[in-house]
């Protein structure tokens, strides 16, 4: 028998699927996770440099540093009627609202002025 000119035999679909599962799928999962981490990092991660806390009925929290509002968390019973942000170039998450105490974390990025009004106003 002469081996010259022989064509490779066909790989069955089940074998191909197994190859995809064991070689390509881990790479896809890994880079998918990397992409998701990159998006979350860009949108949500940042060290806080200033924290403003407003506990009075009506107050204005003013952030005069170059910063970006990244988190606005609420504690206690709802009492604020509105939250107003001016000059805020980027807001990652803003749950308007509704609390006796408002914690505002600010990180480098943009100039942010935040005014908080209570329901009583």
């Amino acid at each position, binding site marked *: *028998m002469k*081996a010259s000119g022989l064509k490779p*035999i066909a790989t*069955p679909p089940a074998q191909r699927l197994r190859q995809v599962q064991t070689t390509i799928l881990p790479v896809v999962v890994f880079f998918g996770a990397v992409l998701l*981490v990159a998006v979350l990092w860009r949108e*949500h991660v940042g060290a806080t440099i200033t924290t403003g806390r407003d506990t009075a009925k009506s107050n204005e929290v003013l952030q005069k540093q170059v910063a970006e509002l990244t988190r606005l968390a609420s504690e206690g019973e709802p009492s604020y009627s509105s939250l107003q942000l001016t000059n805020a170039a980027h807001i990652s998450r803003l749950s308007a609202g509704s609390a006796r105490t408002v914690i505002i974390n600010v990180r480098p990025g943009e100039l942010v002025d935040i005014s908080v009004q209570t329901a009583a106003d």
Partner: protein
Amino acid sequence: MSDWFLRGDYGVVPTDYTVLAMALLLAFVCGHAVAWTYMFTHTGLSYSRSYVNSLIILPVLVALVMMVLANNLIIAFGLMAIFAMVRFRSVLRDTLDTTYVLATIVIGLACGTLKFTSAIIGCLAILAIMLYFWATGFGTRQRYDLILNLQWVRPAGEMPELLQLLERHARSVLCASQRSSDGYAGVDLSYRLLMRDPARSHELMAELKALNGVARASSLSAGDESEL
């Protein structure tokens, strides 16, 4: 997601679920990179698929532990006590077994510290990773599935004809050993083949036996290289 689900964590500091997801994902990515590096650089005989899988799941578990502990020293001591109790009461020979035990402890810890949402998110993340290992066979190093031994009795210059036949059936052909001796014209060869279709290895053997110059051909199926 529904508000009722996101309000499932009790605690002094509210849980930031985006940060939790980010921590778990980053731990997974970094663990995955470490596991791949281990897989590609490991050269000894003690290779274990379970160990490779543990390299991925452990950072995720540790990230979840740290999120649940939340700087609480008392809970940290509790975790150590629980893990020590389980560890010394049972002999865990496999690293992945230990990882499963740690996973259940962490989920229990999250429930016990009233971080219900974190427990559910952590549990789903761990299950997803375990299913990922199962679906992909991650950590398996199968670089060949057939060991082929034969004698080539024709001149060495005519060996490309043999290689052509092997490449017809195999995606990867590795010559593991080649032995020749004085007073003997032939060459003893041993190949490691990754077959295109493992079910048709008998056809390869039949074609090899029909090929002029091949003698004493024998084959042995090989599984993955993991420890049993």
